[in-house]
C-alpha cells in the first residue's frame, strides 16, 4: 500500500489535479491502502544512508579514545537513571504490554485512523498534507514557508525533519532554519551530524561544546566556562531573539491522537513550547506511524516515554494542541504526514512492529555495539538497534545491507524497549531478506553463501558430518608452534584471520564427543 500525497482541508489548494480529494467525513481508505506497491524512501534525498558500511565506519570511531569516553560515560549515566525510575513502577511490564497492544492495533488500522486524524485536524482548523516521500515533504514545507514571506524558521528537534534533510532543502530555497534544542543546536553549529535520537550531540563533551560556542556564537562571553548551566545560558541568549522574531515554527510530533486531531510534543528544555506557541504559522512534519487511536491512549505513552527516554518520571514540557484557536497560539497550522518508506515497513508482517517505536532511545543506551561504535557508524539519522532495523526497511535492505549485522543479538534492546519491539528477531529476519535478495540478484553466489550451503549439506547427514569432523582434525596440525602452546591456535587463514587477530582459537581435540560415546558406550542409539 502507499499513502497518496494529497492536500485537503480548510482553504488548501488542491495539488496534482488528477487525484480527486475524498469527501471529508467519508472514510474510503481502500483506494489507497491496498495497493500492493512497496515504495522505499528514495535515494539522493534525506539522511537514511551512510557512505560506508558499518564495520568500516565503526573502525574510526573505535579508535577515537575521546569519543569512546564521552559515549561510555553518557550512556552509562542515562542507563542507570532509566533503570532506577523504571524500577519504581510496579506495573511497568503491564504498561509495556499495553503500549505494544495499542501500537499493534494502530498499525493494523493505520489507513482508517489516519483518515480520522485528517478529518479531526481539518475540523479544528488545521490543514493536512500527505507526503509520499522526503522530496514531497520538503517541497510542501518549503512552499508553505515561502508563502508566509518569512526567510527564517525556528525548529523543535525532530527526527522526521532530520530524516528528510529539511534544513538543507530550506537552505536551498534561501530559508534559514534555527535549531532550538540545545543538543541539536550544537550539532548545527558544528556542521555535524546527530549521533543519538534523544541527545544528538552525545558524542561531544562539555569542553568540546564550550570551544564550539566560543567559536561560533556571535557575541558570546569570552570567559564562557564549560559549566553545563553556563553553556545552556549562552545558547538561551542566542536563541531568545529568534523565538521572539520568528514567524514560522517547524516541529515533529511524538504523538497524534486520531479521535481528537490533537498533536503532541514532549521535551525537556521549553524551547519546544516556545516554537509551538509563539510563531504565527506552525508546520508539523510527522511520520504516519506516530498515531495513537484515542486521547486515553496517551496515558500509557506519557508514562512509558519519559522514564525510558531521559530517565525522568515525567517530562518537563508536554505540549498538546488541536488545530488553531483565535487569539491563542499560531493562527495557521499545517500537518505534513510523511510516508517515506513506512508503508513498505507496514507491508512486511515480520518487520511491521518496527513502526511501533516511540523513539525513546533506550535501546541505544543499553546497546554494547552502539556504546562503542557511536551513532555516526550507522550512517542513517536513526542509530543503534532501532536504526539497524528501521533504516534498512525504509530504504530497502540493499541500501543499508550491513546494518542488520551490526549486532551480536544479545537482546539487551528488546529487554528495555517500552513497546516490546523484538529487535533481535527482526534483525535475523532482515539478514534472511538480505541473503535471499542476494541469491536472487547475483549470478555468482558469495563465498559465504557457498560455505553456508556446503555446511548445510554436510550437517544434514550425520555420517557426512562425522567425516567432516575427522577432516577438520587435520587442523590439529594447523599453525603448530614450538612453544608448547599445544591447545591453542594463534593464526588461522582466510576470513577466520579476523578471529585470530585478537583471540586464540582452540585446537581440535584428538577425539570428538561422538567418537568418545561410540568407544565408551559401545553402541549408537
Amino acid at each position, binding site marked *: 500500500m502507499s499513502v497518496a500525497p494529497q492536500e485537503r482541508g480548510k482553504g488548501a489548494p488542491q495539488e496534482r489535479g488528477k487525484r480527486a480529494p475524498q469527501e471529508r467525513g467519508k472514510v474510503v481508505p481502500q483506494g489507497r491502502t491496498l495497493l500492493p506497491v512497496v515504495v522505499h524512501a528514495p535515494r539522493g534525498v534525506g539522511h537514511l544512508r551512510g557512505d560506508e558500511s558499518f*564495520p568500516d565506519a*565503526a573502525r574510526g570511531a*573505535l579508535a577515537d579514545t575521546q569519543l569512546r569516553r564521552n559515549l561510555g560515560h553518557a550512556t552509562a549515566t542515562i542507563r542507570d537513571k532509566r533503570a532506577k525510575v523504571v524500577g519504581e513502577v510496579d506495573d511497568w511490564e503491564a504498561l509495556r504490554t499495553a503500549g505494544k497492544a495499542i501500537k499493534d492495533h494502530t498499525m493494523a488500522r493505520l489507513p482508517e485512523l489516519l483518515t480520522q486524524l485528517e478529518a479531526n485536524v481539518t475540523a479544528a482548523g488545521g490543514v493536512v498534507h500527505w507526503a509520499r516521500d522526503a522530496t514531497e515533504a520538503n517541497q510542501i514545507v518549503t512552499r508553505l514557508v515561502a508563502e508566509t514571506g518569512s526567510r527564517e524558521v525556528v525548529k523543535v528537534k525532530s527526527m522526521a525533519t532530520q530524516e528528510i534533510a529539511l534544513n538543507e532543502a530550506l537552505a536551498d530555497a534561501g530559508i534559514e532554519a534555527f535549531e532550538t534544542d540545545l543538543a541539536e543546536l550544537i550539532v548545527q553549529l558544528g556542521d555535524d551530524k546527530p549521533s543519538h535520537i534523544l541527545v544528538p550531540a552525545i558524542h561531544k563533551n562539555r569542553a568540546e561544546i564550550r570551544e564550539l560556542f566560543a567559536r561560533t556564537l556571535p557575541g558570546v562571553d569570552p570567559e564562557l566556562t564549560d559549566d553545563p548551566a553556563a553553556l545552556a545560558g549562552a545558547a538561551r541568549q542566542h536563541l531568545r531573539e529568534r523565538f521572539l522574531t520568528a514567524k514560522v515554527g517547524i516541529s515533529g510530533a511524538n504523538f497524534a491522537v486520531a479521535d481528537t486531531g490533537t498533536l503532541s510534543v514532549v521535551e525537556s528544555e521549553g524551547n519546544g513550547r516556545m516554537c509551538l506557541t509563539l510563531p504565527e504559522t506552525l508546520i508539523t512534519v510527522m511520520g504516519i506511524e506516530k498515531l495513537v487511536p484515542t486521547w486515553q491512549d496517551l496515558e500509557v505513552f506519557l508514562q512509558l516515554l519519559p522514564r525510558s527516554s531521559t530517565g525522568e518520571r515525567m517530562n518537563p514540557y508536554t505540549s498538546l494542541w488541536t488545530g488553531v484557536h483565535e487569539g491563542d497560539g499560531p493562527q495557521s497550522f499545517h500537518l505534513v504526514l510523511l510516508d517515506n518508506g513506512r508503508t513498505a515497513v507496514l507491508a512486511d508482517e515480520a518487520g511491521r512492529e518496527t513502526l511501533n517505536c516511540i523513539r525513546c532511545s533506550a535501546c541505544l543506551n543499553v546497546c*554494547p*555495539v552502539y556504546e*562503542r*561504535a557511536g551513532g555516526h557508524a550507522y550512517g542513517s539519522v536513526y542509530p543503534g538497534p532501532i536504526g539497524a532495523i528501521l533504516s534498512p526497511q525504509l530504504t530497502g535492505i540493499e541500501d543499508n545491507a550491513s546494518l542488520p*549485522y*551490526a*549486532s*551480536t*543479538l*544479545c*537482546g*539487551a534492546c*528488546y529487554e528495555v524497549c517500552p513497546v516490546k519491539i523484538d529487535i533481535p528477531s527482526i534483525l*535475523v529476519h532482515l*539478514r*534472511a*531478506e*538480505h*541473503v*535471499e535478495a542476494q*541469491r536472487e540478484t547475483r549470478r555468482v553466489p558469495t563465498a559465504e*553463501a557457498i560455505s*553456508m*550451503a556446503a*555446511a*548445510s549439506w554436510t*550437517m*544434514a*547427514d*550425520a555420517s557426512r*558430518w562425522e567425516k567432516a*569432523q575427522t577432516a*577438520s582434525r587435520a587442523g590439529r596440525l594447523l599453525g603448530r608452534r614450538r612453544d608448547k602452546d599445544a*591447545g*591453542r591456535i*594463534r593464526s588461522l587463514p582466510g*576470513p*577466520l584471520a*579476523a*578471529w585470530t*587477530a*585478537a*583471540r*586464540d*582459537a*582452540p585446537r*581440535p*581435540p584428538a*577425539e*570428538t*564427543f*561422538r567418537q*568418545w*560415546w*561410540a568407544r565408551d558406550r559401545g553402541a*549408537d*542409539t
Partner: protein
Amino acid sequence: MAGRPRVALLVTCLADTLFPDVGKASVAVLERLGCEVVFPAAQTCCGQAHINTGYQRDALPLVRGFVETFEGFDAVVAPSGSCVGSVRHQHAIVARRFGDEALAQRAEGLAARTYELSEYLVDVLGVTDVGASYPHTVTYHPTCHSLRMLGVGDKPLALLRAVHGLQLVELPAAEECCGFGGTFAVKNADTSTAMLADKMSAVLTTGAEVCAASDSSCLMHIGGGLSRLKTGVRTVHLAEILASTDDVPAGVA
C-alpha cells in the same frame, strides 16, 4: 518423578567437535543424578549459525533433522543456552518462512521439551546441589541467550553456590555481551574485540582463576582472548564444574 528420567543429549556441533569434555561432563552430571542419557547419533547441528547469518533456507534441513532426531524423546538437554534459544524461538519461524506449518508445529512441540542444562537440573529435576566439588575461585558470565532468550535467571548461580569448595566472585557488568555474536566476531571484528576487551577486564578485576559460562561459543571467545593475552585465567563450562568431584576432579583446561 516416576521411574528413571530418560534424557536425550543435544551435545551441539561445537562441543561435539571442539569441546568434547563439555559433552562428557553433561553426561556425567545427568547420570550422577539418576538420568538415563541417550546420545542420538543422527544429530548434527541446530542450525543457529545459519539462521543468525541469514541462511534460513540452508537451515531448514537442519531444523527438520533436529525435529526428526529428537521428536521421540520426553526431554532434550543441551549444554548451551544459545542452541536451546534457537530451538525454542527460531525453529518454528524458519519452518513457517518456507510454508511448512506441519514442521513448525512439530518444532514447537519439541521446543517445549528442550532444556538448557541448568534449567533441566533446577526446574525439572529440582536439584541445586549436584554433589560436585571444585576448589577454585570462579566468576560467572551469564551469556546473553541464557539470560535474555531463555530467562534462566540465577539458576546457574544457584548450582555453583552449592558446589563444594567453590568460591564464587561476582562479575562486574556481568549481563553485558562478551562481543561474540557468531559471525559478528568476524564481520564486525573491531567492535567485537572492543567488547571482548571490556569483558576481559571485568573478569580480571574479580581475581578469579576461572571464568565459567554455559555456552561453549562465548567461552571460546572469552577464553581465546584471555589466552592470547596470557592472563592465566582459564574458561570452563558450567557442566565441567558440576561434573567435578573429589574423586574425579575436572581436568585443567
